[in-house]
C-alpha cells in the first residue's frame, strides 16, 4: 500500500480546494453580476479545461511552466527553482484543471440570489464588498460547499495532467492515481486494488456530505 501517494493526493486536493475557493469566488461574482465586453469569451476560457483532454492541458502547461515558458521563467527568476516536477507545479496544474468545477456551482448559487436582496443591502449602507461577504456568501453556502467538494473529488481523480507536469516522484508528485497506474503496469494488482479501494469511502463520504449540506440549506 502506497501511503505516501495517498498523502500527496489528499494534500494536493486540500490545497487545490482551498486555493480555488479564494480564486473562484470573485470570478463567479463577476460572471454572475457584471456585463462587460468579451464576457462570453472570458467565461468560455474559464470552462475550457473541462472540455479539453487532460493531456492537452498538460502539454500546454509544460510549455508555459517549463524553463522557457513565461511562467516557468518568472518562477525561476523569483525562486531559483523549477515549477515542473514539483508539488507547487502539480498544484498549479490541478488548480487550472479544476477551475470550471469551482466556478460553475458558485456562479449558479450567486445567480440564484434575488437582486432585491442585494439592493436591500446597498440601501442599508453596505458596500459591494461588504454585501459580498455579509449577504452573498452566507446565502450561497450550499453552492460553495458543492463547489469545494467537486473540486476536491476532481483533484483526487486527476491523472494525465499531473503525470505530464509532475511526473512520478514519490512523496512529491506521485499521487494515488499515478501509483495505481504504475502498480497495474507492474502487474501488482493487489497494491493497485488497495489504493483504489481506499478512495471509495472517501468519495462516498464527500458525496453524502454534499447531500447533507443541500438538505440543511432548504428552508
Amino acid at each position, binding site marked *: 500500500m502506497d501511503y505516501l501517494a495517498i498523502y500527496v493526493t489528499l494534500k494536493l486536493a486540500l490545497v487545490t480546494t482551498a486555493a480555488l475557493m479564494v480564486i473562484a469566488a470573485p470570478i463567479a461574482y463577476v460572471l454572475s453580476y457584471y456585463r462587460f465586453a468579451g464576457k462570453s469569451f472570458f467565461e468560455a476560457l474559464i470552462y475550457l479545461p473541462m472540455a479539453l483532454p487532460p493531456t492537452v492541458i498538460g502539454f500546454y502547461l509544460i510549455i508555459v511552466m517549463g524553463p522557457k515558458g513565461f511562467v516557468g521563467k518568472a518562477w525561476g527568476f523569483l525562486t531559483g527553482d523549477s515549477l515542473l516536477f514539483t508539488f507547487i507545479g502539480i498544484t498549479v496544474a490541478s488548480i487550472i484543471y479544476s477551475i470550471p468545477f469551482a466556478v460553475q456551482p458558485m456562479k449558479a448559487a450567486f445567480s440564484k440570489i*434575488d437582486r*432585491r*436582496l442585494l*439592493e*436591500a*443591502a*446597498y*440601501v*442599508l*449602507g*453596505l*458596500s459591494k464588498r461588504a454585501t459580498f461577504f455579509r*449577504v452573498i456568501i*452566507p*446565502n450561497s*453556502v450550499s453552492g460553495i460547499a458543492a463547489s469545494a467538494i467537486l473540486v476536491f473529488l476532481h483533484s483526487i481523480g486527476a491523472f494525465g495532467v499531473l503525470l505530464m507536469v509532475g511526473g512520478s516522484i514519490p512523496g512529491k508528485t506521485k499521487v494515488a492515481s499515478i501509483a495505481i497506474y504504475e502498480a497495474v503496469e507492474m502487474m501488482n494488482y493487489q497494491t493497485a486494488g488497495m489504493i483504489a479501494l481506499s478512495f471509495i469511502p472517501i468519495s462516498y463520504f464527500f458525496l453524502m456530505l454534499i447531500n447533507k449540506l443541500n438538505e440543511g440549506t432548504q*428552508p
Partner: protein
Amino acid sequence: MTIEVSLKKKLKYFDLDINFSFAKKNMIVMIGPSGGGKTTIVRMLAGLQKPDEGQIIFGDEIWFDNNKNINLTPQKRHLGYVFQDYNLFPHLNLFENAAFAAVNKNEVDELFEVFKIGHLKKRKPHMVSGGERQRCAICQALARHSRILLLDEPFSALDAITRRGLREELKSLKRNMSFPIIYVTHDINEALYLADEILPVVDGKIDHQWLQKMIAREPSAQLTMRAAREPRLSLVY
C-alpha cells in the same frame, strides 16, 4: 427643510416626468395604477435607478443632479426602503436582520416591543408570517436612523386584517417620527387614511383628475377621509 424632486426618465411605454416637493415630517402617499411609474420614482429616490435628467435635493444636500454630474449611491443617501417583500436576509434571524445596520443595537429590542414581534427575535424570516416580516423590515429601517423612509407597497401581499393593523401602527409611528415617509400604494382608502399629502402618479405624470375620479367612484373613500381624523389632506403641486 424641504425635499425637492424633479425627475425625467424614458421608460418603455411612456416618459416619466415628475416634479414635487414636500416638507420634512410629512407622509406622502404615492398612488396610481400599476405600471404607472411609482416604483421607478421610489427606486430613483433610493439611488437604485438613475434618472435621465433632473434633481433630487434633500435639504441642503444634493442626491442627484445630472447637470452637476452628482449621483449619490444608495449607501450615501442614508434612507430606509421597505419593499413589498425581500427586505429580510434569509440567513439571519429577525433580530439580526433588524440589527443589521442599526445605529444602536439596544434600540432594536425597543422597536420589537413597539411592533409586537419581541417574541420572534430568534426566528428566521421564513418561520414567521408576512405581516411579522414587514414589521421587522420597518424596524430594520428605523433602527438605522434613516433620514427618509420609503415604503413601496409594503403591505400589499398581506391579508386585509393584517394590513389594517399595520396601517394603524404606521399611522401612530408617523405621529412620533421626525423624518418624512413616502408610501406607495394603489389602494385609494389606504392613501386617504394615511396621507398628509397625496401624489397621484399616472403614466409617469402627476394626474390630480385621476385622483378626483377615483375618490368619486369609490363609495368608501369619503368615509375613509373622515376616519383619518387628521383632515390635513392636501394635494401636492
